[in-house]
């Protein structure tokens, strides 16, 4: 147990213990499923980055001589109603999903963490107001709130990301506040204060680094949800707009060809499910190495 705690940047923040990081990495690797998830996620990221070189066809290139072709040697996963290559569109579609997942969570985190920190650190009125605000935001079903924000902002991938970030913000606020409340009472904060450290220094050098682990864990698990929400918004026509390929909007367009061309509905969904599953198991793995309770 004492060894395990030593692996956390608990009592001595600041300089990172390189051996500690190695221990964490090794513990992560021992969880096979998490490792597989991580590898799959890296592959998806590489596909997204290298899409122009990997994809056999340009994603928006229509070919009216070969529309709704079933999967075959020329088109690995078939073609859609405009003769576009489904395989290429799925590879390019990874971009929208990953961007949405990572950027939306990043936005939600960078809005929620400072607010939660302020609420926990300063307390009082500010805390009351901010906490009732998060209560109110968490009252809405996530998808209803995301949909309402997206509807108010109008369609588009960037706006969908903002909508997802708005939904995630209160989650990070709550978590960060709880972290600050428990860390604030620890001896090392008292010690820092006794040595004359200013609020700013306590926040930046002590509270933030020591709260990083749970925030990162929460963030990694939220990436999965954000990818699904983006796909859902795009499926409803509120996210990524054509001609940019995204898995959600591909599934939207595929719906009317379900009988004729079921492959159009199958492959983008598998792409989403595999990516989200990979992120989920990798996130679970990260949580396990950091959360002593589940060890």
């Amino acid at each position, binding site marked *: 147990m004492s060894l395990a705690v030593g692996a956390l940047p608990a009592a001595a923040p600041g300089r990172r213990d390189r051996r500690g990081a190695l221990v964490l990495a090794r513990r992560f690797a021992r969880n096979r499923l998490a490792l597989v998830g991580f590898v799959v996620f890296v592959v998806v990221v590489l596909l997204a980055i290298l899409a122009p070189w990997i994809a056999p066809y340009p994603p928006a290139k229509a070919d009216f001589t070969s529309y709704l072709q079933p999967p075959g040697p020329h088109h690995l996963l078939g073609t859609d109603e405009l003769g576009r290559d489904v395989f290429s569109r799925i590879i390019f579609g990874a971009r929208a999903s990953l961007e949405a997942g990572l950027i939306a969570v990043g936005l939600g985190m960078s809005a929620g963490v400072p607010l939660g920190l302020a609420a926990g650190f300063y307390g009082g009125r500010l805390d009351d107001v901010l906490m009732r605000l998060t209560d109110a935001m968490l009252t*809405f079903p*996530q998808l*209803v709130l995301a949909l309402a924000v997206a509807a108010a902002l109008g369609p588009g991938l960037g706006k969908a990301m903002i909508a997802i970030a708005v939904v995630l913000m209160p989650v990070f606020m709550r978590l960060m506040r709880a972290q600050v409340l428990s860390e604030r009472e620890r001896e090392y904060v008292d010690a820092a204060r006794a040595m004359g450290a200013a609020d700013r220094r306590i926040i930046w050098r002590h509270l933030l680094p020591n709260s990083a682990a749970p925030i990162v864990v929460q963030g990694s698990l939220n990436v999965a949800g954000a990818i699904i929400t983006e796909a859902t918004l795009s499926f409803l026509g509120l996210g990524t707009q054509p001609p940019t390929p995204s898995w959600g909007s591909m599934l939207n367009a595929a719906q009317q060809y*379900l009988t004729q061309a079921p492959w159009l509905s199958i492959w983008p969904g598998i792409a989403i*499910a595999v990516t*989200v599953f990979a992120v989920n198991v990798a996130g679970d793995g990260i949580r396990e190495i950091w959360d002593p309770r589940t060890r």
Partner: protein
Amino acid sequence: MARFIARRLLQMLPVLFFVTLIIFGLINLIPGDAARLFLGEEATPDAVAALRHELGLDQPLYVQYARWIGRMAHGDFGYSFKDHRPVLETLLQKLPITAELTAGALVIAWAVSIPAGVVAAWRQRTAVDYGASAVALGGLSIPNFWLGIMLIYLFAVHLRWLPASGFVPLSQGVGRNLRALLMPAFNLGIVLAAVVMRQLRSSMVEVMSADFVRTARAKGLGQTVVLVRHALRNAVIPVITVMGLQLGTLLGGAIITETIFAVPGLGQLAVNSIYSRDYPMLEGVVIASAVAILAVNLFVDIVYSLIDPRIKLAGSRS
């Protein structure tokens, strides 16, 4: 008990205030003029100005907010931009359909998750446990709208067992109603089943290492009795909280499920009102879902205290 409920209702007031503030803020974010949207593109500027005045849109925002709250307190949720009927009327008309769908989803979720969670905890760290957990995580990773499409493909297009979409009201026969509702309810219930199964498994694992379970075993009670009467009864308490909190997931899921299966409930109404820019209607659905969740949270707190006498009513959660 009455004091507890009164206290919880009072605690809900500031939350309700922020809920209305968020919705009001969102309405005002929407580009374009409500009077223009209501009257349509052909309306004369004079008519638009007159309606603006009538709706109070020429007033400062805080006056608009106060009036808006006042109207809602009287049950006036405004009028649809599309058919100009009162929003509340349409909401009440759609509510039973979504309620039936949600109830069906709950039944399916319980039917799947309780046996699965109990067995996974009982056969902890075996292939059965890992299999069930993997399936649950898989269920959480599959986008619900895609699962719906695949269900339609399999059971309606391919096997032709069930209707692909649509809704048959109860008045046209219970059998036909249930047949139409089976796939949507399954689609909606399966997400919840995954969440509940994971929660139930972990709380069962915890309970099963408790002394009273060992005592029950030592007394020579059968496996089933120990599992169901002793372990499950105690493990189910945190699960109920999760179920309450998951109502939001169900209402959000209803949006997807109703859209895919063409079920004319509140979820489909929300999506259609976004497409037709019928903002008062969308606002109505959003408010209704927030109120429903607040009510259910209160209800869960009460049930919680009835099931588990150890929980003191006065204890406030924050």
